[in-house]
């Protein structure tokens, strides 16, 4: 095995499969985080724009905490904190239990809470951009509160929030690089391994940076397509 690896380390081609695996991990982590973050962010935004002061307070505490902490610290706190917490609980039943928390899930939770706290602000400003008359119109044609939200408010909300959310997606894609610090084999970690083995650090980290750039470019093409599709809906109305 060792000889194959040293053989492969002749050219960057030999490492391409490892880096491709890293790309797979990075993209799947970002893609798995996105729905979680969007849903929590939307719920927090709902709380923050509610008439009930206690709900607003609860939402504001959430955003203040998770926007104020460095992403790396959030990640470590969740990774090690979950490990210690679950271990403590397990010890109650089995004193010798040793728990290993999944790095992927920890990364997903940490990036998800950070993403959602930013997304809640985006959703909140979109909520504020929707005139009150839309809710009143929905009420006057006999829609229930949930129906008004689903049929009247949400389609407009998505259109207004889309540029902000697109920006957050690009930030999320970059933030996934942090999970290499808790041992997940993403692009950066694979590049680091390749760099350490082959001593061509600049090459491999340069390739990693270019891959991130490529992902950003592909994403912005996708975002443009979505924005155009949503914009077309607007024109038809």
């Amino acid at each position, binding site marked *: 095995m060792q000889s194959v690896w040293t053989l492969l380390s002749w050219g960057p081609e030999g490492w391409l499969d490892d880096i491709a695996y890293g790309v797979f991990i990075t993209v799947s982590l970002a893609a798995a985080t996105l729905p979680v973050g969007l849903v929590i962010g939307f719920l927090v935004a709902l709380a923050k724009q509610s008439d009930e002061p206690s*709900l607003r307070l609860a939402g504001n505490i959430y955003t203040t905490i998770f926007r104020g902490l460095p992403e790396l610290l959030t990640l470590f706190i969740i990774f090690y904190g979950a490990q210690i917490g679950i271990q403590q609980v397990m010890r109650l039943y089995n004193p010798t239990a040793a728990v290993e928390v999944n790095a992927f899930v920890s990364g997903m939770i940490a990036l998800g809470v950070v993403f959602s706290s930013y997304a809640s602000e985006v959703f909140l400003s979109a909520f504020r951009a929707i005139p009150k008359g839309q809710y009143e119109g929905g009420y006057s044609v006999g829609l229930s509160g949930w129906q008004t939200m689903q049929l009247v408010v949400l389609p407009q909300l998505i259109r207004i929030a889309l540029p902000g959310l697109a920006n957050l997606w690009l930030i999320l894609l*970059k933030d996934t690089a942090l999970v290499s610090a808790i041992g997940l084999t993403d692009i950066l970690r694979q590049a680091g391994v390749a760099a350490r083995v082959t001593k061509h650090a600049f090459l491999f980290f340069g390739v990693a940076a270019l891959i991130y750039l490529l992902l950003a470019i592909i994403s912005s093409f996708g975002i443009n397509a979505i924005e155009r599709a949503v914009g077309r809906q607007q024109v038809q109305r």
Partner: protein
Amino acid sequence: MSATATDATKVDRPPALPRGWPRQRVLGYGLVCLWIVFLTGIAAYLVLAWNGELFRKYAPGYVSGLGVTLLLVAISIVLGAILSVPIAYARMSKNQVLSGLAYAYVYFFRGTPLLAQTFLVYYGVGSFRSQLEMVGLWGFFREAFNCAIFAFSLNTAAYQAEILRGAIQSVPRGQWEGAASLGLHKLQTMWKIILPQALIVALRPYGNEIILMIKGSAIVAIITVYDLMGITKLTYSRTFDFQSYVWAAIIYLIIVETLRHAVEWIERRITIHLQR
């Protein structure tokens, strides 16, 4: 007079807040209670886990780590601000090549993770050892702290250039034309007319950029700089005491919240003439 008074009584008032315990209020109180339990839980944990010896041993480290973090961010922000001026200028220039180059610079540094850029500098610089030794810069790049400053300055320069460009372009063209008609030359116009108006727009993004840098600077812990995060990791790896992370979180939260409120205060002060 009386007519307006009767009209006023007929005006639709906003609906009174529902009394009793509607579902939203139950949920809201429940969530606030959860937060209270969580936060008092953390406070109780810190009190219970208090270890005087540990504190005496590691508290000075935290103070110096905080110093390193603030120093790192301050130097990077200032260097980035200086560097951002020519980049923003190039980005706004009519010369296609110049603006294209500036755009590529900004796109690269905004499109790749700060961690990847830091690694590229810290580990990648070894690939150019002989060249750097020739120029005499090898000693500079051997220090992780200097590498971090180098990477962070380049990174924040790209963001600050965009902030500066956006702010300058948000000032209406008429301001330039008005200044030109009064006989001010370009530099005077920039300094006396455009920048004061642009900086009001730029203040909040600049504040956000500083906050992002403080949060982003935590990653230097990975390249063995002992900033606040680095000290925290070191303390944790020596003691396996989880409170080291909780203390770091509290310190970061205090810094970020202070900065955020400071920026809001400055903004309120400098926009007094715009408020009615």
